């Protein structure tokens, strides 16, 4: 398991390099990369985002991310998990987060990766502050992110 909170950028190729050491049991690798967009999601809010500052809670962040990876491994058959999240000042087009899962089967890899991303959005202690052409402001949490993670809870209840 590779869990990192860092200022530096990352390359997608680190995923293949890291999973290569896990041998030939792996049949499927899914990666998610989140990047800084230069527009807010809301259609009525078209201020240009010039930069993003990511603050986090050192220590708790790492333990929440590790727990998310463990949770995913307990729900699906995953050989390995990578989570890398950047902090500090980022610009449009910059990488923010990388989540990667390796499994024997593609549905496990897809589900594990999507579950980790959805859960990270609502439980990992990161906060974004945007520098826009109209000034700086803290990004508000989105109700849709809570809905996405609630789907996994419902699914879990059904499985039991």
């Amino acid at each position, binding site marked *: 398991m590779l869990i990192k909170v860092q200022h530096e950028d990352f390359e997608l190729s680190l995923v293949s390099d890291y999973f290569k050491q896990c041998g030939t049991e792996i049949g499927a690798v899914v990666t998610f990369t989140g990047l800084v967009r230069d527009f807010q999601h809301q259609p009525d809010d078209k201020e240009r985002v010039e930069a993003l500052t990511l*603050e986090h*809670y050192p220590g708790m962040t790492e333990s929440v991310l590790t727990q998310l990876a463990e949770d995913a491994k307990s729900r699906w058959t995953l050989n390995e998990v990578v989570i890398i*999240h950047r902090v500090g000042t980022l610009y449009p087009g910059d990488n923010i987060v990388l989540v990667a899962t390796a499994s024997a089967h593609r549905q496990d890899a897809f589900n594990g990766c999507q579950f980790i991303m959805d859960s990270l*959005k609502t*439980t990992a*202690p990161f*906060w974004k502050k945007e520098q826009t052409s109209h000034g700086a402001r803290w*990004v508000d*949490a989105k109700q849709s992110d809570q809905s996405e993670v609630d789907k996994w809870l419902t699914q879990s209840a059904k499985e039991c």
Partner: protein
Amino acid sequence: MINVLFFAKYREQLNTDSLQLDADFSSVESLIDVLKTKGDTWQQVFSQSGLMVAVNQQMAKLNSALKDGDEVAFFPPVTGG
């Protein structure tokens, strides 16, 4: 002693990263009651509906118990990813 941390918007609004309190608090709620007395801004921040709290780096609730040496963190809803 309780170590209290503030993050993101709250850290800015309170103009405080962290503070140490020597008093004993039975729960997060009783700690908040004391923090609210520190001024109008503190009253406002700790009345916000989205307030999240962690005790010793684990998500906690308003009625979570506290003991000497605990680290308590207050922050708004998270927005990473």
